[in-house]
C-alpha cells in the first residue's frame, strides 16, 4: 500500500529501475544500435548468473565470476556474431529465429550441465545496513549505485568520446560512415560482443538477489524488448525513458494491485506502443 514509508518505496523503486536498466543495456546496444533482434539476450544474462553459481561451487569468491562471465559471453558473442548473425543481417525474421534457437540451445545446455532446480548464490553483502532510517540490504544499495555509475559513464562515453562518435555515425548512416573510412563491419562485431558481455555482467551482479534457473532468460528478454519498444531504439535517452515508463508503471501497479497486474500493465502498454507508435518515444533509427 502507498503508506508513509517513502524511503522504503523509493529505494525499492530505484532498485527495480536499476535492475531493469542493467539488464536492458546489452539489448539496447545490440538491438538499438545494430538492429539485431537478439532473442538470446536473456540467456546471456542467465549465463552470467550461472557463472556466479559455478564460481561459488568451486569455492571461489563471487568477484571471480566477473572475468568468467566476460570470457564466456565474450567468446560466445564473437562466435555467434561471426557465424549466426552476420550471414543473416538482411533477414530480420531469420535473425529472430536463429537467435531464438540459440537461446534454446543455451538453455538446454545449462539444464544438462547444472540441472533444472533453482539455485542460490550467497553474498556477504546481503545483510542489511541502516539507511534513511530503515534497514535495507546492502547489496541492493551497491547495485543501485553501480547502475547509476555505469549509465552515467556510458552516457559520457557515447556523447564525448571519439569511439562513441564513430558508433553514432555508424548508426545514423552506415553507408556514409563506411565511406568516411569507419570499419563498420568490425565496429558492429565489437558492439555485439560488448552488448552480450554487458548482459552477462548484469547477470553476475544480480545473481545473489534472484532465483537462478535455466529458464530465467525469457523474462529479462521480454522486459528489455518492451523497454526498447516504448522508449525507442538507438538512443540512450530512449532507453532511460523506456526504463522509467516500464519500470515505473510496473512498480506502481504492483504495489497497488499485485505483481500480476503490474506485468499485465507492462504488456498492455507495449501492445499500445507497438500498435500506434512502433518507433517508441525517442527513436533515432
Amino acid at each position: 500500500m502507498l503508506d508513509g514509508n517513502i524511503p522504503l518505496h523509493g529505494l525499492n523503486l530505484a532498485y527495480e529501475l536499476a535492475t531493469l536498466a542493467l539488464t536492458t543495456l546489452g539489448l539496447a546496444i545490440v538491438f538499438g544500435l545494430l538492429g539485431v533482434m537478439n532473442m538470446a539476450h536473456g540467456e546471456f544474462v542467465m549465463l552470467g548468473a550461472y557463472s556466479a553459481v559455478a564460481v561459488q561451487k568451486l569455492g571461489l569468491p563471487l568477484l571471480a565470476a566477473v572475468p568468467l562471465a566476460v570470457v564466456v559471453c565474450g567468446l560466445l558473442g564473437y562466435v555467434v556474431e561471426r557465424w549466426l548473425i552476420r550471414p543473416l543481417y538482411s533477414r530480420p525474421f531469420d535473425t529472430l529465429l536463429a537467435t531464438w534457437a540459440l537461446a534454446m540451445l543455451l538453455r538446454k545446455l545449462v539444464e544438462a550441465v547444472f540441472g533444472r532446480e533453482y539455485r542460490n548464490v550467497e553474498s556477504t553483502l546481503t545483510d542489511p545496513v541502516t539507511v534513511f532510517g530503515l534497514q535495507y540490504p546492502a547489496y541492493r544499495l551497491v547495485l543501485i549505485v553501480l547502475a547509476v555509475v555505469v549509465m552515467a559513464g556510458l552516457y559520457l562515453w557515447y556523447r564525448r568520446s571519439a569511439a562513441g562518435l564513430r558508433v553514432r555515425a555508424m548508426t545514423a548512416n552506415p553507408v556514409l560512415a563506411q565511406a568516411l573510412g569507419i570499419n563498420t563491419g568490425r565496429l558492429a562485431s565489437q558492439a555485439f560482443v560488448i552488448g552480450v558481455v554487458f548482459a552477462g555482467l548484469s547477470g553476475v551482479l544480480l545473481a545473489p538477489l534472484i532465483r537462478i534457473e535455466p529458464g530465467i532468460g525469457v523474462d529479462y528478454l521480454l522486459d528489455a524488448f518492451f523497454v526498447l519498444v516504448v522508449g525507442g531504439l538507438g538512443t540512450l535517452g530512449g532507453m532511460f525513458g523506456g526504463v522509467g515508463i516500464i519500470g515505473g508503471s510496473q512498480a506502481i501497479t504492483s504495489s497497488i494491485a499485485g505483481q500480476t497486474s503490474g506485468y499485465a500493465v507492462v504488456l498492455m502498454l507495449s501492445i499500445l506502443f507497438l500498435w500506434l507508435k512502433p518507433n517508441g518515444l525517442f527513436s533515432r533509427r
Partner: protein
Amino acid sequence: MAFFRDAKSAAFLAAALVALPFASSEFVAYQIALFLIYGIAAQGVALCWGRLGFLPLGHALFFGLGAYLFGGMLKGAESNPALYLALPLAAVAPALLAYVIARLVFARSSRSGPYFSLITLALTMLGFLAAQQWSSLTGGFNGLANIPDIPGTSRYETLYWLVAVAAVISTIVLAMLATRPIGVIWEAVAQNEERLQLLGYATDRIKANAYAFSALLAAAAGALFSAHQGIVTPQAMSFILSTEFVIWAAVGGKKSALGPLLGAIVVGYASAELRDQFLYWEVAVAALFIAVVLFLPNGVAGLLKRRAEPRYGQDSPAPPVHGVGTSTTPVSLILEGVETAQSGVTILDGLSLALSGPGIRCVIGPNGAGKTSSFNVITGRLPLLGGGVTLNGHDIGGLPAWRVARKGIGRKMQVPSVFPDLTVRENLGLAVWAGRASGADTLKRVTLGWHTQLLGDILEEFPALASQLDSPAGTLAQGHRQALELAMTLLPEPRLVLLDEPCAGLSPGETHQMIDAIKTLVGQIGAAALLIEHDITAVEAMGGDVYVLHQGRLLDKGSLADIQASATVRAVYAGGRK
C-alpha cells in the same frame, strides 16, 4: 484429376495415420494424436509465415482459447445439452478475435511485420496471465479439469480417429488453397505487398482473413486438445507453446501443407519420448533448429519437394472490371496546392496541375523536382500534408494505395516492381483478377485461366513475355521486367495510368518498342496517362502535353515545342536560376 494432385500429400498422411494404431499400439496412437493436434496449429502458423510472409509469434492464444471454450462447453453440456450446439463457437470466436486484431494492426501500415509478431507475442502473454488469474472462469493455475469425452468417442481409444480425420482435412484444404488463385495472392503479399496494393488488392484485409483462418485452425486444434487431455491449463495459451509451433513449422517446412504436421510429430513426439533418455537431446533439437534457419529456410519439406507445380487453368474469358470502369465522363485529375514532406524535407511545395480526357502526357524536370513524389502522393505512398487531389470529381487525397487503385488509377514504379518468385503467367493473372475476381472467384481453379482481349494484345506487343510465361518473374531481364510491369499496370484497365520511367535501363531498340506499345495499349483502353521521362526523344515520340516540375511546383506546361522554347525552363535546365 486436379483434385487428386492436390490431395497427394494428404493421401500419404491418411495412409500413414490409418496404419499407425495397428503398427504400434493404441496408447502410442493416443500420444501421436497430441502431436497431430499441435501440428494443425503449426499449420496455421505456417500459412501466415510461409505463404503470406508475416510471423505470428503468439498463436497459442487461439489454441488456448479454443481449448478453454470447448472444454468449458463440454463440461457444461453434461447438465445443459443445448450447449452441444454451441461447440463450433469454440473455433469461430477465436477466429473472429484474430480477424479484429489483424485488421487493427495491419491497417496502420503495411510495413508492420515485426511489430505484428511482437504484438501477438504480448497478447498471448496477456492471455496466459488472464488464464492464471481468472480462476473462477478458467480454474487458474490448476486448470479446467475433468473435461468429459466428446460424445461418441473415448479418449484413449477412438478419439485418435477423429483427430486423424481433422489432420487430413486440414492438410487437404491447405494444399488445395495453395493451388488456387488465393494461394497466388497470398504469396504475392509476401513478395511485394506494395505492388499488390497498387493493383487494388486490400492487402490488410487479405492478411486479416488469412490470419483469421489460421486462428480457426489453431482454435479447432485447441478444442480437440481439451478433449484429448481432459484438462486445460494456462500453459495451453503460453509463449513457450507458441514458439514450439513456430519451430515445428520451420523444421517441417513452412511453405508446405504437410510439413508442419510432420515437424510436430517428428520433432515434438521424438522430443517427448527421448528427452528423458538422452540428456543432450534438447540441445540437439536446438542445434537442428539453428541449422534449419541457416541452411534450410523451407524446412525438411523444402528439401523433399522440388519446385511447386505450375498453377494454371484452361483459358476462359474474364468478367468485366466492376466499379469505376464504365463511366462516360472523361477522366479528370486535379492537383491543387499539394504539399508533402518526409523526414523534415519539403518535397512538394504547392503543386497544382490538371488534366482531363484520354491521352498521354509527359512529366519532366530536373532530379529532385518531385516527379515521382507527385505520383507517390496521388497513390497514397506519401502523406498529403496540404492541398487536395481530385479524381473524376472525387477527393482522393490521403486514401490508402489500394483504394486509390480501385478508383481507376494504375501505377508503374520507377524500379520495375513485380512478384519475383511467381511466374510471369501468375504475375499477369494477379493483374487480370484485380477488380474482377470476387472472393469466391479466388477459390476457384477456373479463375487461373482468365483471359482478356487486352492480355492477348499485350502478349502480341511483347512476344518475350509470351515465351517466358512459366519462368519466375525475377529471372527476367530488365527490359522484359519493365514490359511485365507495364502489362500489369494496364491489365486492370484503369482510366488513369501513371508511368514512372518505363524506358529506364532499356536499349534504344527496346525503348522504341516500349514507346510504341505504350501508345497503342493506352489508346486501346482509352485511358489518360502521365509519363515521367528523362529521354527527350521518348517525350517527343509521345506527342501530347508536357508538364515541367521544379522544386516541388509546376514550372510550365504545354507542348514539347513550347516547353523547349520557354525561357524559364531553359534557365532551370541550364542552371541559370535557383
